[in-house]
C-alpha cells in the first residue's frame, strides 16, 4: 500500500503543479492511524497530510457533486466500488463528468476499526498487512489477526472492478473470490415473519437518527430531503420503543432502490453498527430475481428497474410467492 500511496502522491503533485487540476480529492491523516478523512488538496503544500492506507474506506464520489461545480478541474482517487457511485451520480446529472479527472486506485479491501476493537485490541497505532495476515500494533504490544475477520462488511463480499478511469494506479490485482453477497439476506428470508420482525426491531431500535447513513449515501443526494421537513412526520426520532425507526429506514431504502450501488457506506458509517446493507441488498436481490440482473452504476446511461416496466411483469402476490 505504501508504494501505491507514494505513486498517488507523486501524481497529485504533478497535477497540482502543472495546473491541470485545481484540486485533488483524496484522504488526509486523522488524529489516529485508523481515521483518515476525505479531504480536498489545493496545493502541493497541503499534500503533506495526504494518506492512502488500509483505513481509507470512505467513498469520495459524493463530494464531487459540490466539487464539480467549482472553478477548474478536480482530480479524484476512486476505488473500484466508488466508481459505481460515480457513474450513478453522473447518470443522475449530479456530477459534471467533464470537470472530473478520475484516477482509479487499487483497493485490496479496507479494514474495520470496530472489528479490530471487538477483538479486544485498543489504542491501535498502526497495521501491517501481509496477505491474509494483519499485524496490529497497539500501545500495549502487537497482535496478529486474520484479515478476513476484520475487513469492512462492504469489502467482505466485494468483487467490483473499476467502471470509470481516466488513468489508473493499480500495482496489484485483487483476486476474484467466490462469495455470495446475498447469503445474509437469504438467511433472513428463511425465517418466519415474526422472527424477521424481531430481528429488525432489535437492529433498528438501536438507531439514534444521527442521519449519517443518509448523509454519506451517494444515492441520497436530493437537495431537499423529506427527513429535514418537520411536517413529514418522520423528521425526528420516534418516541416509540416498539419499532422505532422503521419508517425512516423503509423510506430511505426504497428511495435508493434500483439506484443503490451496494457501496456499503451506510453500514460503514453507522455508529450503532446496524447492518443497513441488508436492507438495500434485499431490494437488489428482488430486482435481480424479478426483473433481471441489474447493477446500478455499471453504466452512466440507461433506465433503472423502477423507471421501466415489461408487460409481462409479475403481480406483487406472485413476486412474494417465489419461494419465500
Amino acid at each position: 500500500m505504501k508504494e501505491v500511496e507514494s505513486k498517488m502522491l507523486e501524481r497529485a503533485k504533478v497535477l497540482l503543479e502543472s495546473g491541470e487540476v485545481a484540486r485533488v480529492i483524496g484522504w488526509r491523516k486523522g488524529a489516529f492511524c485508523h481515521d483518515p478523512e476525505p479531504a480536498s488538496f489545493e496545493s502541493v503544500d497541503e499534500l503533506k497530510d495526504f494518506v492512502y492506507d488500509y483505513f481509507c474506506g470512505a467513498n469520495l464520489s459524493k463530494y464531487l457533486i459540490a466539487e464539480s461545480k467549482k472553478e477548474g478541474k478536480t482530480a479524484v482517487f476512486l476505488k473500484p466500488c466508488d466508481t459505481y457511485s460515480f457513474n450513478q451520480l453522473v447518470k443522475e446529472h449530479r456530477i459534471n463528468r467533464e470537470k472530473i479527472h478520475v484516477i482509479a486506485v487499487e483497493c485490496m479491501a479496507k479494514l474495520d476499526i470496530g472489528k479490530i476493537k471487538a477483538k479486544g485490541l485498543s489504542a491501535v497505532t498502526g497495521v501491517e498487512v501481509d496477505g491474509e495476515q494483519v499485524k496490529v500494533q497497539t500501545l500495549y504490544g502487537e497482535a496478529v489477526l486474520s484479515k478476513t475477520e476484520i475487513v469492512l462488511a462492504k469489502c467482505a463480499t466485494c468483487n467490483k472492478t473499476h467502471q470509470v478511469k481516466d488513468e489508473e494506479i493499480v500495482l496489484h490485482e485483487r483476486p476474484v473470490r467466490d462469495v455470495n453477497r446475498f447469503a445474509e439476506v437469504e438467511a433472513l428470508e428463511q425465517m418466519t415473519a415474526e422472527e424477521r420482525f424481531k430481528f429488525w426491531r432489535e437492529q433498528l431500535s438501536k438507531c439514534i437518527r444521527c442521519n449519517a447513513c443518509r448523509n454519506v449515501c451517494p444515492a441520497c443526494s436530493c437537495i431537499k430531503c423529506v427527513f429535514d421537513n418537520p411536517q413529514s412526520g418522520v423528521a425526528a426520532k420516534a418516541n416509540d420503543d416498539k419499532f422505532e425507526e422503521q419508517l425512516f429506514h423503509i423510506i430511505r431504502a426504497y428511495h435508493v432502490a434500483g439506484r443503490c450501488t451496494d457501496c456499503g457506506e451506510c453500514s460503514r458509517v453507522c455508529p450503532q453498527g446496524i447492518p443497513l446493507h441488508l436492507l438495500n441488498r434485499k431490494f437488489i436481490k428482488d430486482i435481480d430475481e424479478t426483473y433481471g440482473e441489474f447493477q446500478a452504476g455499471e453504466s452512466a446511461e440507461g433506465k433503472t428497474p423502477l423507471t421501466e416496466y415489461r408487460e409481462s411483469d409479475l403481480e406483487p402476490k406472485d413476486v412474494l410467492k417465489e419461494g419465500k
Partner: protein
Amino acid sequence: MQEITTKEGFVPNIVAFCCNWCSYAGADLAGSSRLSYPANVKIIRVPCSCRVNPMFVLKAFQRGADGVIICGCHPGDCHYVTGNYYTRRRMAMLFSFLDYLGIERDRTRLEWVSAAEGAKFSAVMNDFVAKVTALGENKKLSDLRVKEGE
C-alpha cells in the same frame, strides 16, 4: 353497509387507493348495484394507481391503517396508457420489502378492477377485510410521532 368486526370488537381500518377511471367507478358500480362491501374500507380517489407514492402506503400504516389496498385499471387499460405498469413494479418491490421486515403479507394488496367490475370490487374488499381482520391490529408500523399530536 356494515363494518366487519371481530368478537373482541376489533374494527380494522382499511385504506383503499382507487384510480379515478376504473376502480373508483367500479366501487360506484358496486354501490349502485347494491353489492355490499365493508364500511371499514376508506376509499381515497387518485387519478391513477401510479399516483400512489410508496410513501402514501407507509403514511397510511403510520397513521393507523391495518391494511392498505391499491386498485387500478387492468394492465393495458390504463387511462394514461402505462401508469399501472409502474405501479405493479413499485408495489411488488414495496410489498416484498415490508414482508422482509416482518410485516404480514396480507396487509398489503394490489388489484385490478375495471369500471364494469362492481362485483369484483365487492368480492375483493370483502376478502381483504376478512384477511386483515384475522390478522388483528397493525401494531408493527404504527408510529407514536403521528398519533400523539392528533
